[in-house]
């Protein structure tokens, strides 16, 4: 039996003037499958919606075409109408006779409008319903890393009723020994105690991830600890593996007097110098102009040294990175307290003279060369991804930004999200973060995971994108191009491997369907035959 198509024209309150609707209606009514053609003036208003719902029900329509405005503006409204009338929302096709027809042409455009409707009818006849199905998900979360961000994420997730495993490769939790903790004087012992006392948080030290498989809701992870491997399932994974720093141009002959930021904060805290330094130098922002943290660390350390020792302090720098909260204030405070900022276009030369570190630079404001002998020089540092990031990212199949930090630099990714659903990043491992941004990350990741896993099940479109096991030749092309890691090979019929697309992980971007050489992948709504049928409708004989 022929599929029953209902067509609804809308003249947009009379704003579509150059279409002869009577003629268009007559012509469309003759097309195969069309059981009813209606003209309305305001389908998207409440009264229009009601008229449409009752027409769909009364005339037992099986497919609907709306000829009116842009689907970008109103498609969701018409999909809602279909659902209200008891039809699957994917059985709708829109013909844009307003923005793409009436409003862009002068003169009568009835013929073009009818063509657009004919295309939509040909497509709608081939559309298939897509149902939504719920899948159970694990309410356990793996947090890789044990710094300030990692522990806070675990605690916040425990408040949402989710269990977490905090996994650290080293023998102890890292939160206490981090540079940010030292710079800000954050007391990590209380948070470590809180984590250890929390029954929803399990701590695994000296443990590593060996293999990882599966998808959001059910990642399978093999963890090795003390020579023993265990296999566990997690609904989501949070990477909080921090960063590392590397000194630029250490000036080998100057030896122990050239130190890192971290070493300098330790010196400040433990007073481990034989005598107090009279002059301290800092170098900032020449080799790496894209990091915020070195500015923060320098300002905090310079102020602390000024306060503790009353030393003369010189900061050689190109640009201070003041684009984080409170940093301009801190910069002002440092200048007010007598810290001297020497602005240069090029990095100063570092040498040694009479046992002290010699720094030669140029002050662009004074227009003079400057030679400084200092007791301690805090070297410029590069802010880099933590070791092991590369191996981990290939294990997880997630991309890094051009500097090698986790998380692709894609603006459409929310701050803590990755292109793979269920994998999140927090803190220094996704780029250098100041405390404000890190705190937002921590709460953000807890929110995202709470939404995803709290209910223990997730709803997703069922087989909206599907690979046909009969046609698939397991060439792996789709697996390589899928940006969301949603496709894997599964074994069917004892020896045949075929691609299988996870409904939960799929983002319905359609890339796999476009590249499949065997045309085995069908993306409902955009299948080849649906596109070809539209072209067929306007082919002139």
């Amino acid at each position, binding site marked *: 039996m022929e599929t029953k198509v209902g067509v609804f024209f809308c003249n947009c309150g009379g704003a579509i003037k150059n279409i002869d609707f009577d003629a268009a209606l007559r012509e469309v009514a003759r097309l195969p499958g069309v059981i009813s053609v209606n003209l309305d003036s305001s389908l998207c208003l409440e009264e229009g919606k009601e008229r449409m719902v009752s027409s769909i029900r009364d005339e037992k329509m099986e497919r609907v075409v709306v000829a009116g405005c842009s689907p970008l503006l109103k498609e969701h409204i018409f999909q809602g109408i279909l659902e209200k009338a008891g039809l699957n929302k994917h059985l709708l096709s829109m013909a844009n006779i307003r923005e793409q027809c009436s409003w862009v042409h002068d003169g009568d455009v009835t013929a073009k409008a009818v063509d657009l409707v004919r295309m939509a009818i040909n497509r709608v006849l081939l559309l298939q319903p897509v149902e939504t199905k719920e899948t159970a998900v694990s309410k356990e979360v793996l947090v890789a890393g044990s710094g300030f961000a990692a522990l806070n994420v675990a605690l916040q997730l425990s408040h949402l009723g989710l269990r977490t495993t905090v996994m650290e490769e080293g023998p102890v939790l890292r939160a206490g020994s981090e540079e940010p903790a030292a710079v800000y004087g954050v007391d990590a012992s209380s948070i470590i105690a809180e984590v250890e006392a929390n029954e929803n948080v399990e701590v695994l030290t000296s443990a590593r991830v060996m293999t990882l498989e599966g998808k959001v809701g059910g990642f399978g992870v093999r963890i090795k600890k003390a020579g023993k491997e265990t296999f566990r399932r997690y609904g989501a994974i949070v990477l909080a593996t921090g960063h590392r720093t590397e000194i630029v141009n250490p000036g080998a002959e100057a030896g122990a007097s050239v130190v890192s930021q971290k070493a300098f904060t330790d010196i400040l805290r433990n007073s481990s110098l034989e005598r107090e330094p009279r002059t301290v130098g800092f170098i900032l922002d020449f080799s790496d102009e894209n990091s915020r943290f070195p500015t923060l660390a320098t300002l905090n350390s310079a102020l602390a040294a000024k306060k503790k020792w009353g030393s003369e302090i010189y900061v050689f720098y190109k640009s201070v990175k003041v684009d984080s909260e409170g940093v301009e204030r801190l910069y002002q405070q440092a200048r007010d307290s007598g810290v001297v900022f020497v602005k240069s276009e090029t990095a100063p030369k570092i040498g040694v003279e009479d046992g002290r570190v010699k720094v030669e630079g140029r002050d662009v404001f004074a227009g003079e060369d400057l030679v400084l002998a200092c007791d301690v020089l805090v070297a410029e540092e590069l802010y880099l991804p933590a070791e092991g990031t590369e191996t981990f990212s290939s294990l997880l199949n997630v991309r890094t930004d051009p500097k090698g930090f986790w998380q692709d630099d894609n603006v459409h990714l929310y701050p803590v999200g990755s292109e793979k659903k269920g994998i999140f990043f927090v803190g220094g491992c996704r*780029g250098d973060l100041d405390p404000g941004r890190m705190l937002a990350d921590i709460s953000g990741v807890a929110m995202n995971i709470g939404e995803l896993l709290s209910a223990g099940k997730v709803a997703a479109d069922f087989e909206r994108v599907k690979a046909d096991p009969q046609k698939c030749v397991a060439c792996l092309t789709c697996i390589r191009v899928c940006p969301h890691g949603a496709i894997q090979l599964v074994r069917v019929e004892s020896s045949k491997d075929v691609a299988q697309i996870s409904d939960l992980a799929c983002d319905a971007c359609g890339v796999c369907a476009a590249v499949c050489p065997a045309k085995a992948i069908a993306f409902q709504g955009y299948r080849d035959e649906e596109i070809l049928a539209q072209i067929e409708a306007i082919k002139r004989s």
Partner: protein
Amino acid sequence: MENNNNVLVVGSGISGIASALELANAGVNVYLLEKEALVGGHSASFCCKATDICSQCSACVVSDKVKEAITDPRITVLTGSTIKRLRGEAGDFHVEVVRRPLYVNGERCIACGLCTGVCPTDPKAIHPPFAEALPFSFVLDDGLCLRIKGERCDLCRTSCPTGAIEFDLKAKEEELNVGAVIVATGFDVFDAREKGSLGYGRYPNVVTGLDLEHIFAREGYLRLPTDGSEPKNIAFIQCVGSRDEGHGYCSQVCCKYAMRLAGLIRYQNPDARVTIFYIDLQTAGKGFAQFYEKYRQDIRFVRGVPVEILQTASGELEVKFEDISRGRVSRDNFDLVVLSVGISPAKNSWDLARILGINLADDGFFDVKDPLSRNETNVEGVFLAGTCQGPKDIPDSIGHGIAAASKAMQVLAKPVGRGRAS
């Protein structure tokens, strides 16, 4: 007694929208309050700054999210609305809201455009909103409308096919019962007229960064405001309304928007020369290093912020600046000068702070309770999201908005009547 499952989000810019969407996804009912007729705030009016590649300005993310928010069944959008009073406590707030008449009923307007066609004023008093604004309902500018000014014009109302235009409307009040409030009222752009010597408002070819965003968003290309010709020599002046006496902070967005806009200008017209005057360049941030490499080749960077701009007899703009590398005052002529205006606290902050009982910080933004918790205010159950707490770019505003949603969720999850005594 059941937990209150409603949250009020005040302000529908990108951070308010991020909060609202997260909460709605978590099953919470959200009232999204907006004082203007349109949803989306500042960021919805920004232009795409892509050249042959995406420059990652994030402007496109906003329109997606705005659409998602206004179509979400759990989010009730209240446009033209402001808060009059807040009573109660965390978990059980009563909020009195005033809805002013907008004259165009968003639920009836079908955006057919017939009203604009008949409107007799120039520019038109009733017009379509800017491209990314939603709901896609027309807006009536009560400063231009003859009817509102007291004349007898009724042309748009009689032309409207759906009866969406109503003039005899009064302000309405309603009361909302919510468990938590998220304040996401955003910022005001620094008024460049306050720096009189830079000539904004006096010389038409001195524009602000926001003006330039709107020019590109509306026209797609850059022309001189005076004669419509293509500018060949353009200067950007950084830190206008940031990092000075009255603004002890960096606005965080201007260096990057200036470089991205400069990149766009150079892409459209490779012969154009662009100079950026700056104090310290803010080039940190995800993925920015790769763009900065290119901008360094394409743009002339001059250290120092000009203090004066004068228009010459031929209409060019003479910029007087301290040439630090040569140690003297220099002058240079440009056809167009863009003032990279910063983020200032919203002008109504003080009123809202008083109504909600929350504190303002020294710089005029809303204050946080504790430096290690940047969403929480001194009032339990009232949280901050986005630039009302301090300058942020689009991704940071989204991040802060999600974090605020997370804090609000924790209030809703608390058992009622316990643990709230303090």
